[in-house]
């Protein structure tokens, strides 16, 4: 459990600057070779030190730490589906917001049930290629794409994270295909975060993603018509700020997870009054 800035999830268009009470349970339904939290995600609950926190206690702790949002994050919250669902229901009844940071690898029916209580989700679209999905994560692409579409249909605020791993998914043509799919099926206003890979777990033989690759992916996303593309896990870049899709002025200036400038008033750009997609 930890209190994080919402930008760390990453969610850039969902109440920027807010602190979010973040909680993780042990385990995951995928086995990604690049997992950055493998010590807890690839462990059994009985194998790691943990706290026993009931959903009611979780809500009380969130309030105690002056947060009004809970993030189910770090590992895979869908692996502890019942706990996530119960906590979300109770949190909602206490006017707290629920945020899911997930791989989106779940069947439609249980996901639909959970989405009813969610306010926002960041879904990892790890590869845009079923073979690689199977090889690196042991999952598959189709359920994740369905989870993304369902989130939009159910009005859950959605942001996508795509971790770019050198040699595995840094093919710009595939990134372009992915961006076109997002544009067509989810709309132009869904923010996408291209995150830098750092060598972890079973992929320590690969280097960290070069900034130039992330920048190329960012440019492709913008060229395909996605309005909000970001570069993540790189400190102090131009691409971690939000720009107005109309006048192109900086509406939220970020450095790391800190906000330096905030120029959105009532959900609109303070310069040209164009609405900026998000929950503000």
């Amino acid at each position, binding site marked *: 459990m930890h209190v994080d800035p919402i930008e*760390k*999830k*990453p969610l850039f268009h969902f109440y920027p600057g807010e602190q979010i009470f973040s909680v993780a349970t042990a385990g995951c339904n995928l086995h990604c070779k690049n997992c*950055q*939290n493998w010590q807890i995600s690839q462990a059994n609950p009985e194998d790691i030190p943990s706290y026993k926190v009931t959903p009611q206690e979780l809500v009380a702790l969130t309030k105690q730490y002056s947060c009004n949002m809970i993030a189910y*994050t*770090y590992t895979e919250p869908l692996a502890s589906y019942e706990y996530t669902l119960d906590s979300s229901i109770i949190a909602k009844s206490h006017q707290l917001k629920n945020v899911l*940071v997930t791989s989106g690898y779940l069947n439609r029916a249980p996901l639909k049930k959970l989405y009813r209580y969610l306010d926002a989700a960041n879904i990892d679209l790890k590869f845009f290629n079923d073979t690689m999905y199977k090889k690196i994560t042991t999952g598959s692409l189709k359920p994740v794409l369905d989870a993304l579409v369902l989130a939009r249909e159910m009005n859950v605020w959605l942001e996508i*994270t795509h971790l770019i791993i050198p040699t595995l998914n840094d093919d710009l043509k595939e990134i372009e295909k992915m961006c076109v799919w997002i544009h067509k099926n989810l709309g132009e206003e869904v923010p996408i*975060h291209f*995150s*830098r890979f*750092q060598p972890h777990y079973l992929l320590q033989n690969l280097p*960290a993603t070069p900034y130039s690759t992330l920048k190329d992916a960012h440019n492709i996303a913008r060229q395909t018509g996605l309005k909000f593309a970001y570069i*993540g*896990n*790189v*400190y*102090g870049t131009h691409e971690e700020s939000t720009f107005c899709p109309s006048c192109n002025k900086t509406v939220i200036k970020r450095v*790391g*997870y800190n906000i330096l400038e905030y120029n959105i008033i009532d959900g609109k750009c303070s310069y040209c009054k164009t609405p900026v997609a998000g929950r503000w």
Partner: protein
Amino acid sequence: MVKDMNSEWINKILAAKISRKDFLVLGSKLFILVILLSHIPLRWIRQNAQPLKMKVKQFKEKHLFQQHNLAG
């Protein structure tokens, strides 16, 4: 006298007859000079310590952030 050190100038100083009064006057002048001179670097440090501290913090943040403060 100091010997075997090829330090002729030390011997000259030791040989010079300086009265107690002259010694105190010279000593206090030197003391004031040292204080005045030391004021310059102190003022420089005071003026620059904060930005330097910030620069170190930013450097650390930039390099550690990328490895240990990953999104998620």
